[in-house]
């Protein structure tokens, strides 16, 4: 980065942050809350399940009626370079566009000024291979609707809907993307790690007694229209076979950090 660009960023940054105190002190022994807000859009438009109509670069129009995906293994890095890893068992969240309460995962982290967020889209390999007794909560294979029984493994990302481009009478498309790399021999691995820099659009200044709301824009349109262009007509069903890796490569880029609201009051206070 050249110096002029750097200074320019600094200037913009300082303007944006001018309303925030720079002298917050943090106590590593105290914990505050972080809320991740998943705000779904499709190629720039708000996601409206069942009713909203969208299109891809093949000029195929489509509607989405199911959108679910797993977020797990959450890590936050503060401005001192210190990494906080959310205890693994508490780090699994199933984001379901139909269920508003699922869109705002909340958890506690030590106080600090967090400038980086990392998570996995999907379920890590170890958990994918775990015994039945560990599969509780959103990992419950009976209730998640995100599990292949015949090919033991979680579906990481599920998007279904309708499009006139689908060459059959039902006009339905379904993208169920999973595959964790195989149980005993390496196979396709679609586990994606998402890294987001928070400092540009506002770091998470976590203080005890408050919540820092990290607002993420999730552009679902990227799933079909990212680096790889996926035609609904050509690939109306992608699950264990088909270009699932291309779709996974696409959706790993669908997250952008939009802004952070710090010092938000907690609901019960």
């Amino acid at each position, binding site marked *: 980065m050249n110096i002029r660009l750097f200074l320019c960023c600094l200037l913009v940054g300082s303007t944006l942050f001018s309303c925030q105190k720079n002298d917050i002190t943090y106590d590593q022994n105290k914990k505050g809350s972080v809320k991740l807000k998943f705000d779904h859009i499709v190629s720039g438009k708000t996601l409206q399940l069942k009713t909203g109509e969208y299109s891809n670069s093949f000029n195929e129009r489509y509607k989405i009626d199911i959108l679910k995906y797993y977020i797990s293994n959450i890590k936050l890095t503060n401005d001192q370079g210190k990494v906080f890893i959310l205890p693994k068992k508490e780090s699994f969240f199933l984001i379901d566009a139909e269920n508003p309460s699922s869109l705002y995962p909340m958890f506690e982290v030590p106080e600090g000024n967090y400038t980086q967020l990392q998570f996995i889209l999907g379920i890590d390999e170890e958990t994918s291979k775990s*015994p*039945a007794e560990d599969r509780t909560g959103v990992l419950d*294979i009976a209730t998640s609707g995100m599990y292949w029984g015949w*090919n033991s493994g979680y579906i990481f990302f599920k998007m279904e809907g309708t499009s006139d481009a689908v060459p059959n009478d039902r006009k339905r498309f379904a993208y169920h993307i999973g595959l964790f790399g*195989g149980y*005993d021999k390496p196979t396709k691995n679609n586990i994606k790690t998402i890294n987001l820099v928070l400092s540009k659009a506002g770091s998470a200044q976590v203080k005890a007694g408050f919540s820092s709301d990290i607002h993420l824009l999730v552009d679902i349109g990227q799933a079909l229209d990212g680096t790889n262009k996926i035609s609904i007509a050509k690939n109306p069903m992608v699950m*264990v076979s088909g270009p699932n890796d291309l779709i996974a490569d696409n959706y790993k880029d669908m997250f952008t950090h939009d802004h952070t609201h710090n010092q938000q009051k907690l609901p019960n206070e």
Partner: protein
Amino acid sequence: MAAILSLVFACQKSEEIIENKFRGFLKPLNFPEPTYNFAGNPISEKGFALGKKLFYDPILSRDNSISCGSCHIAQHAFTHHGHDVSHGIEDRQGIRNSMPLFNLAWNRSFFWDGGVFHLDLFPIAPIENPLEMDEKLSNVLQKLQQSNTYPRLFKVVFGTSEINSINMFKAMSQFMVMLVSDQSKYDRVMRKETTFSAEENAGYALFQANCNACHQEPLFTDQHYRDNGIGENSIKDQGRFDISQLEEDRLKFKVPSLRNLRYTAPYMHDGQFRTLEAVINHYRREIKATKNLDPLLKEKMKIELSELEVQQLLAFLNTLNDDNFVNNPLFHEF
């Protein structure tokens, strides 16, 4: 508690079954260590009974019409005898020959394609397969929770009357891992309790020379996936490839055990071989040069056996049948 048990076992009151009463899981002397994690699911008599009740209960299917036991019949070493591929709900036909169930505690994977890697994660597959039980697991759990008997039985076994996928599958595993077949003549010979006849001995030598590389003793499978050259069938079932999506796995299927063949005809993943003679003749003269044909068959493209040797081999295979296992009332529905 006793009342519940007597209810479950009401069908087993006759005297002679004392021989086959529940003794917990015992590793046969001539078997290796099991792969199933018993520490994670300690086997109890009541857990076994609950698993058995679930195994035979059609409540697991969408219209409450078929149970696991419908296609896995005890007298046939828990396969669907006489059917090339199994029939599910509303007589819908599956694509594969249902595998027999025995010695599952040693399995490293399940199904012909090995798609499931823990026994405790197995039952969801047939329950939710539209060609089998066509039910949602969450509905099954609801039906069980609302029944008059199950919450009580789960409370006894797991200390909670709340039924979830974890304790339901653990109960079913408690029944399934107990299906140990180790009373064949072969087993008794290995334990030095009896001896082979001359013909069986000759067959055993032929088996060791020609079959044991894949059908490894004492389980009679190495549990690997292999293409034995029977070729692609009419529905183009790709076997292990459907799970791994690796070209090298096309037309590979898990090597099945050779135990209990008398009760489990027809043979192979799609049941296209009605007799053992037909299977042996496949290896003698019908192997197809498929792309992933197993290297052990590729060189000669045949297993050379005279007619006499075929009879000897069949005599040996006959020693792998376990009448005690298939007739054990402990495992039977009624």
